[in-house]
Structures are given as structure tokens and as C-alpha cells.
């Protein structure tokens, strides 16, 4: 516990931000490289980063709105769906790539003297930045569906910040254990596909039976998704108290994740 309070200890809350700040040029260079190379060699390039949510959108609209008539619960089902789907795809991708970041960055860790904390942070930042770049396209589609941008969008940077912190905390733990047990990455992929159905993305919160509302209430990812839906679809500011709780949880998770990471990072080079 004392360790948490000593500024020079790597277990201290300020350690991770300090490392990132000291290596900010490197972090940015790597994020830039990831974004530049992500779609290189593909003809449609950046298009693919929103092609996937749009294809899913088409299928979900057909199944849930047309076949199952779930759309009647929401005014503008395609717009509602897309408002939650874009952020979810970003979250899901960054959890997966973050979990693999240390294993995939084996070269950096086994061949150079490298602050390994940088790797998960870089992958998450790359995915979040990629998401930010797709936001104009999301807004364009929403406008085509007659949901126009509003002042509520000003809350976007704040939601993104909470999003980044929450995912970073979780990924620090997952990436660490994935070095020792590569099963974690597979597990994460499957858990994420289940989590998707526990989130009010393809259905509105209103259809959840009262007895099961806790699945959304106590789920920080659901809170994040709802915040995104608030600003994109409902054109209102997010629930600040709710977002505040998620932010607090995220900070606790980062503190915990950083402890797990620091405890094991010295032996990463031997297991990669």
C-alpha cells in the first residue's frame, strides 16, 4: 500500500501517465505508423473502417427492425443502432488488439530496451483515433437518417477520455496474463461477442425486463455505449453522474491493471 504513494514507484498512479508523457513522441510515431499501415495495400483503404459497421447495420436492420419488428420500440431504428454500433466496434477492437499487444510486440521487448507499457497504450490510442476519424462519417449517415448533429456532441472528447481510461485499465490486466497464457486472447474474443448482446445496442434499454435491468446498470461498457447514444442519437448530454462513476471505476482499474503489469513486466522478455 505504501508503494502506491511513493512517486518514484512504478505502482504509483502517476507512473503510467509520466511514462507516456516522457515517451510521447515515440507513442505518437507508433500510433501514426499503425494508422498509416492499417489499410495500406487495400484498394478501399480507410473505407473498411466503417464498411464493417455499415454491413452489420444492414443485417441488423433487416433482422430486428423488419423481421422482428423491434424497431417500433425506437423512433429511428437504423440511427439508434448505428449510434451504439460504431463505438462498440471500436471498444471491441481495442480490447482485442490491446490484449495481444505485448505478445505481438515481442520484437520490441526481446530485442530492445523498451518501456513495455507503451505497447497496449499505443494499440488502444490507435483504435480510438481511428474511431474519431470515422465520427464524421457516422454523423453523415445520421444526417442522412435525419438525425442531425447537436451541441451535445461537445461532450464527445470527455466520453472518449473515459472510454480510453476504462479500456486501458482492463487491457493492462488482459495483456499481462496473455503473455503467460495465450488462451486469454481467444477467451476475450468469445466473451466480447457475448457482451455485445448484453448491451443495449441492437435493442433499446426499455425492452429489458425490470429484473434484468442491473445488467445494464452495473455494466460500465453499457454506460459508455448509452453515453454515446445520448450524444449521437438522442441529441442530449450524457448522464454525468453515470459517466463519473465509470471514470472512477476506470481509474481504479488502471491502478489495479498497472500493479499487475508492473509485477510481471520484468519477465515478459523470457516468455515471449
Amino acid at each position, binding site marked *: 500500500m505504501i508503494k502506491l504513494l511513493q512517486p518514484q514507484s512504478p505502482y504509483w498512479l502517476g507512473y503510467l501517465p509520466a511514462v507516456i508523457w516522457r515517451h510521447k*513522441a515515440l507513442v505518437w510515431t507508433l500510433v501514426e505508423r499503425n494508422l498509416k499501415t492499417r489499410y495500406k495495400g487495400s484498394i478501399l483503404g480507410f473505407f473498411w473502417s466503417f464498411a464493417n459497421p455499415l454491413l452489420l447495420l444492414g443485417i441488423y436492420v433487416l433482422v430486428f427492425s423488419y423481421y422482428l419488428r423491434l424497431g417500433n420500440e425506437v423512433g429511428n431504428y437504423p440511427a439508434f443502432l448505428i449510434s451504439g454500433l460504431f463505438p462498440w466496434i471500436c471498444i471491441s477492437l481495442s480490447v482485442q488488439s490491446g490484449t495481444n499487444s505485448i505478445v505481438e510486440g515481442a520484437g520490441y521487448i526481446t530485442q*530492445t530496451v523498451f518501456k513495455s507499457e507503451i505497447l497496449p497504450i499505443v494499440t488502444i490510442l490507435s483504435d480510438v483515433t481511428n474511431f474519431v476519424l470515422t465520427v464524421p462519417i457516422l454523423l453523415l449517415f445520421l444526417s442522412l437518417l435525419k438525425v442531425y448533429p447537436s451541441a451535445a456532441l461537445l461532450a464527445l472528447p470527455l466520453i472518449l477520455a473515459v472510454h480510453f481510461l476504462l479500456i486501458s485499465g482492463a487491457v493492462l490486466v488482459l495483456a499481462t496474463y496473455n503473455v503467460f497464457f495465450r488462451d486469454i486472447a481467444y477467451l476475450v474474443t468469445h466473451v466480447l461477442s457475448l457482451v455485445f448482446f448484453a448491451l443495449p445496442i441492437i435493442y433499446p434499454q426499455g425492452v429489458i425486463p425490470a429484473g434484468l435491468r442491473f445488467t445494464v446498470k452495473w455494466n460500465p461498457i453499457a454506460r459508455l455505449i448509452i453515453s454515446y447514444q445520448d450524444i449521437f442519437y438522442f441529441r442530449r448530454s450524457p448522464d454525468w453522474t453515470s459517466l463519473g462513476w465509470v471514470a472512477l471505476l476506470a481509474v481504479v482499474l488502471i491502478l489495479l491493471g498497472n500493479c499487475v503489469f508492473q509485477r510481471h513486466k520484468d519477465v515478459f522478455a523470457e516468455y515471449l
Partner: protein
Amino acid sequence: MDAIIAEHVSKRFRKYSTRQRVALKEAILHPGRLRRAAADPALQLTALHDISFRIPKGVTVGIIGPNGSGKTTLLKLISGIYRADSGRLQVFGKLSSLLGLGVGFHPELTGRENIFVNGMILGLTRRELQSVYPSIVEFSGLHEFIDAPVRTYSSGMHVRLAFSIAVSLSPDIMLLDEVLAVGDADFQKKCRQRMEEFQRAGKTILLVTHDLASAESWCERLLLLHRGRMAADGNPSEVVRYYLERFVNQPDVPAE
């Protein structure tokens, strides 16, 4: 003045089979048990055992020995990639290792972009890179290809680019692992010239090699490792002769 001091350094690795047997559940529920298993000597492989030496500043030292004798492990300990299990290692001065040759290279990026990515991973700032960039390109001899994606490079060109970045770092201590055999004859000549410049500039060089002739001609001193132990340390020609007599010409001792 010493550049590197090693005192009774030992490094052990967990044997591969024991890593596989550890269950995920075990690790989560009983982290203590995992640590105790890791400390069991029967499940460990001693990569380096009680290694001690001092390398004075400005000296070129070679490390030779059969495969698996611990040469690369020693370099990784000195460079800080691995932590020693016991003993003490001190390094005085800025250190650069050619272990990180081409780390972070992306095939789709151009030579120029990769110079910046790799250079920053190796610890240079963007500004430093901008100033050494012309000399990196000059050294690599890849002027006309520098704006082409690295995937279009031949493997020789790839290594030349990586090597050129690494030698531009101007460290006080240089760790080289089997790199004198890089590129064509012309590039090798350049590398040798650069090494001579380093030596003249009073830099410390630590060189791992299997090329006994170049080890003998290049180094002022040789360390011979055998199964993780220091088998000899001293005058290059004597150490090479000892190595050949003791480990290479003996049929019962596995040599490479």
C-alpha cells in the same frame, strides 16, 4: 575506468515443459504456488553461472563459444532486456545494442518512414534523427530506394538499412551480436571502417561472433563461454587456440 562490470552474475530460465503445465486456474488462485514452482532448481536451466569480468572503457572485447553457451543471454543482461537472478551488473555510459536491428520495421512503410520509427524505438529523438538522417541514408547506400516501401527491398537491403540506423546512434558502448556478416563485400568493408572509427573514438565494443578469425583480428580480449560458465578470458590468440583444442577438436564434446 570501467565500462562494464559483472560480478557473479547468474541467469536461470524456466524449462519449457514446466511453463506449459501451469494451469490458468492455478495462477489465478495460487500465485504463491506458481512462484515456488518457478524457484525449484530441478525445473530450471542455468543459462549463465557466476560470470564475473570487468571491461575497461575503449576496449573491444569478443565473446565466443558454442551455440547455447549463453553469449546472447549475456548481451541481453548487459543491455537490460533480461534481469540477472543474482550477482551485479553495472554499465557506465550510453549503451546501444544491435540486437534491435530493424525492430518496428513495417513492410508497407518507406525506408525513410522506417528510419524514423526504428530510430525512435532505439531511443533517438525526432530532432536527433533529422540531423543523422542524411548520414544514415549515405551509409546504407539506398538513396534511390529510400522512398519505396521496405517490402520491395531485398533481404540484404533490409539489413543494410537496419544496420545503418543502429550504427548512427553514437553510443559509448556498442553491443554487437553476429552482425559483421551483414550485406555484400562492399557494405562489410564500410561496416569495418565504422567499427574502426568507433575504436579510434575510444568507444567500448562488445562483440558476439562465431567467426574466430575476425574475433582474433578485431578484439583486444576474448571471453569464452561454455555451457553458461566462463571458460576462458584473455589474449585473443590464446583463447581461440584453447577453444579449438578444448571444444572443437574433441569428439565427445558437442561443438557446432
